[in-house]
């Protein structure tokens, strides 16, 4: 076994030895901060470049480069086990399978590794869901452009479209990337030409016309301990919590779906972040599920709305030593305990050439506006968005009324933040 340097010295950690020792896989300052303020011993497992920062700030740290799983994965599992780590928590899509592999050793539950692989492959995930009796849309794996065109044609034939009718779009997603990364909408065979070859293989899905939303669920001992519904105003642009009453009315139905998911994927503990569609006739379709914190800062929004730290909630849910009472006391009551609605909006420049960042007056002067994380533009020319692209930063809002929040977030789409 090669030697791995461990920087856990020097720091007086204020922790309770009756509680678990957790490892965070991946670099997230917000997660580290949450762990640092919590009552459990922790260690950060992240790439080498974080080492100096951790040493300066006395953050317990083990350097590790998360490439593809290899024979060394057992090495890190062994190392964490020797340290006395009870469980590890994946912070990013790329560390989910590592967490599965390591936890299968730490907790002596070999099936966790297989479970992690399901979470990492959107195609396997859908099949598993389907086997478990969960409704999913039509999907297929594509290995080249020909597969995509065939799928597009077949889906539209199924929909009884005639030659010349506009196609229903299909969605193409990378198997193993988070959120909107590598997500394309394809309407015509011409769209397929724009897909670079390196994006294959990929998952193809039919388009579901309906209301898309996400769920965050904290699970311990196989039970849901807190369930949040995140309402997307426009996918890829904006989200807020708690959702409007119109979406919250499905809460019981959604809880049922999540319970099915827990059973199908054999999830005993941890945190999941699935996405669903609800169609006009109230049928719930499963989209995908991730075993890690959501992007788009939903955790931060939850903290603003409810006052609890969602990362700490994750630590509790993962820690096998967490007690029922502790969990009961930690999580607030869903919806009723929220002090208001917290939302954020991802800004994309609307113009092709931009000179400066200028928060629109309508935003700046709105009661709900809190702060933004936008930076002045580094370049004047805005690169064209392909696929869903990445926003330039988030703008945060908070207020009492869900409908005002929804309309406000929607209204942001028509404003220029970069001029």
């Amino acid at each position: 076994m090669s030697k791995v340097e461990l920087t856990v010295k020097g720091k007086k950690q204020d922790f309770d030895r009756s509680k678990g020792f957790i490892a965070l896989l991946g670099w997230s300052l917000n997660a580290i901060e949450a762990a640092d303020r919590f009552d459990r011993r922790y260690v950060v497992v992240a790439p080498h470049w974080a080492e100096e920062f951790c040493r300066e700030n006395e953050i317990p740290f083990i350097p590790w480069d998360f490439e593809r799983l290899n024979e060394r994965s057992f090495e890190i599992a062994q190392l964490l086990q020797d340290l006395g780590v009870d469980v590890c928590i994946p912070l990013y899509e790329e560390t989910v399978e590592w967490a599965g592999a390591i936890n299968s050793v730490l907790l002596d539950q070999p099936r966790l590794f297989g479970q992690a692989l399901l979470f990492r492959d959107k195609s396997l995930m859908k099949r598993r869901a389907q086997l478990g009796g969960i409704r999913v849309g039509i999907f297929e794996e594509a290995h080249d452009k020909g597969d995509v065109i065939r799928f597009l044609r077949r889906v539209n034939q199924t929909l009884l479209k005639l030659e010349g009718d506009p196609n229903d779009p299909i969605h193409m997603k990378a198997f193993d990337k988070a959120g909107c990364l590598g997500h394309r909408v394809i309407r015509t065979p011409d769209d397929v030409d724009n897909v670079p070859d390196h994006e294959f293989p990929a998952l193809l899905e039919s388009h579901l016309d309906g209301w898309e939303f996400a769920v965050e669920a904290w699970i311990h001992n196989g039970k849901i301990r807190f369930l949040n519904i995140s309402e997307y105003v426009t996918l890829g642009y904006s989200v807020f919590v708690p959702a409007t009453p119109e979406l919250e009315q499905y809460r019981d139905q959604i809880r049922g779906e999540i319970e099915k998911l827990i059973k199908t994927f054999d999830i005993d503990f941890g945190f999941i972040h699935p996405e669903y569609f609800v169609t006009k006739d109230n049928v719930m379709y499963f989209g995908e599920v991730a075993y890690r914190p959501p992007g788009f800062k939903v955790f931060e929004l939850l903290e603003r709305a409810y006052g609890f730290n969602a990362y700490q909630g994750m630590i509790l849910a993962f820690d096998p030593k967490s007690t029922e009472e502790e969990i009961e006391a930690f999580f607030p009551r869903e919806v009723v305990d929220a002090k208001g609605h917290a939302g954020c909006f991802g800004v994309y420049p609307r113009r092709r050439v931009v000179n400066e960042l200028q928060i629109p007056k309508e935003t700046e002067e709105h009661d709900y506006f809190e702060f933004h994380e936008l930076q002045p533009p580094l370049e004047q020319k805005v690169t064209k968005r392909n696929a869903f692209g990445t926003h330039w930063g988030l703008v945060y809002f908070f207020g009492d009324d869900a409908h005002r929040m929804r309309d406000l977030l929607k209204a942001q789409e028509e404003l220029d933040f970069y001029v």
Partner: protein
Amino acid sequence: MTTLSNDARAALDRSHKRFERAWERFSQARPFARAGHLPPLLDASMSLLQQPGGVQRLYPHAIEFDALGVFAGSDWSEPAALRPELVSGTFAGKAPIIAVELLSELRILAIAEGLLDHPGMDATQARGFLETLLALNLARLFPRHDEADRTRPAQQTRAITLTLQFIVEHIGYASVLDAVVQEAESMLAQRPILVQTICHMIAELGRSEPESRAKPLFDALFRPSAATADDPGVARYQAHLSAMTGEEIEAEAHTFARHLSTTGLASAYHAVLIRHLRGVAPTLLPIALALSSTGRDAMLSYQELVLRLIDEAVYPETAQAVYGLHALLERGALYFPPVPRGLWRQIVHPIRKEVQIKLREVYGPAKPPRVWLLSGLIQVLGQPLGIGQGDNPTCQSARALSLWAQSDPGYLLQLLLWATRDGAIVMSFEGEAISSKHLDAALAGDLHTELDPISLILVPHLDRIYGEMWRRVADRGADGHRWINPEFHGWWVQRGFAICVDIFSGAVIDFDAFIRRFHANYHPYYNGNQPVIFPQPAGIASTTPHGEFVGWHAITIQRVGLGPSGEMRVYFNNPNNEGRQDWGGGVVTSVTGQGEIPGESSLSFDQFCSRLYLFHYDPLEQGEPDAVDAQVLAEIAHAAATSWAAGRAFN
């Protein structure tokens, strides 16, 4: 202490709440995570600092900035290493950097006030730093406007000004006294219509250092005469006046007149005196108004009108109208036949409701709207070169008002009547009438209201019409000023049109011929010694003190003539309220001492040429373009090419 409107208070509360949340997030974060919370904190700080009253709310946190690491890892972490000379450069930067700078200044103020002990800087050093900083940034402390400022987001400018004002109020004006006095004197030398900023400066100075170099100005405003030596207040002064003998009153009149002509400022007491004299001793009015034989003659010719104007418009609240009246009479404006008639009409004509509301909104309820309007009218007609555009990008409209007040005051009175009676004005453009009524707000969409009453009422109309004229010439493939300037301003704008910039490519074209033409039409040595008959609109490429291009700016060429040192100078009016401009490369406009009439700026003819890009001329006057020395032309071309024209194609 100014009271805030409900809107301003709501905005302040909102920004304050936002700041406190950002502060909470920042200060409660683990030290290693604070960096991520800093940008939102800086953003919230900027938004709070730009609200009146905001600095005060933020200041209590200043003692914690260092300890919590607001400056950690930045150039501001060691206050001892900071240099006040560099701050003005930082102020010209981007918002987050300005925010750090302002927070650092407030931290230094906390050190200077003994609220914070800092190992690297003691209270004396902190004070010294702030004094130097203020002296070097007076323009920001008392904002006068230049084009570079106007194009920067106004909120940043406001945050800087409010923070500096907060600092100076805490450490005292004494520290920056000399610099401020000089500033006030040179602003006053230009005899602006709006003097609030100057009065504010003088009041602050006089209060903090009563026996200083600021004394003459302070006295002129607050204790101008023997009977006002203790600043008795308007009511008691009125009582004093009633008890005075004829000789005492005459002495008062002389004293006030002296202040009026040396400073251009009229104190509230002066207005009381004028109203008093109008009742009991009108024959002393010419003395109290500091009139020469010209003014005296005008007053005698139109005595009834002058007395009526005093009744209607001269009050302690509108004391500057005393200077306006002085200037109106001195320049003989009443001898333009339409002027006295137009004034009589304006006195009696009712003002439409929305104009009244606007006037009351901006100038307050102390006097009825018609008083504000009339006193403003007296000033505009009396001080055409004192009209300013305020903090608005409407130099064209301000310039037009100044031109009409000078050359066509009857027309100006007509426009005002239309605006105040009909709520719209109509101009003709190439034979077609354009009414301001149904046009969208153009540049002045959100008019900043620090303006004289006439500009306040007319500029929105003028700006709309000007915008509409631009719309109509948009597809003519050449610079629209060619057609618009004569139509907008009047027939006396010459139809010959010279521009040295290709409006599509931005390239400089035929600069040599352009400058020769300007010499042949304006320079007395090349135009047969002809004066400028009517002031002419012209365009300047305005530049920063480093000579970098800022934008195109409208000015008026007033006259061309020899300066006191024998060189040919162009005297022009800059409607941006501030004639003193440093345009880089040694091109610094002068406002006094080079033969300027108050309100004029001047540059040597060559320097003026180096920033000129557009002018009008009479095409039938040929002049002697070929006689201009090639060496002089080369120097002018070089000065242009290395400043505003840098980076442009240049022929």
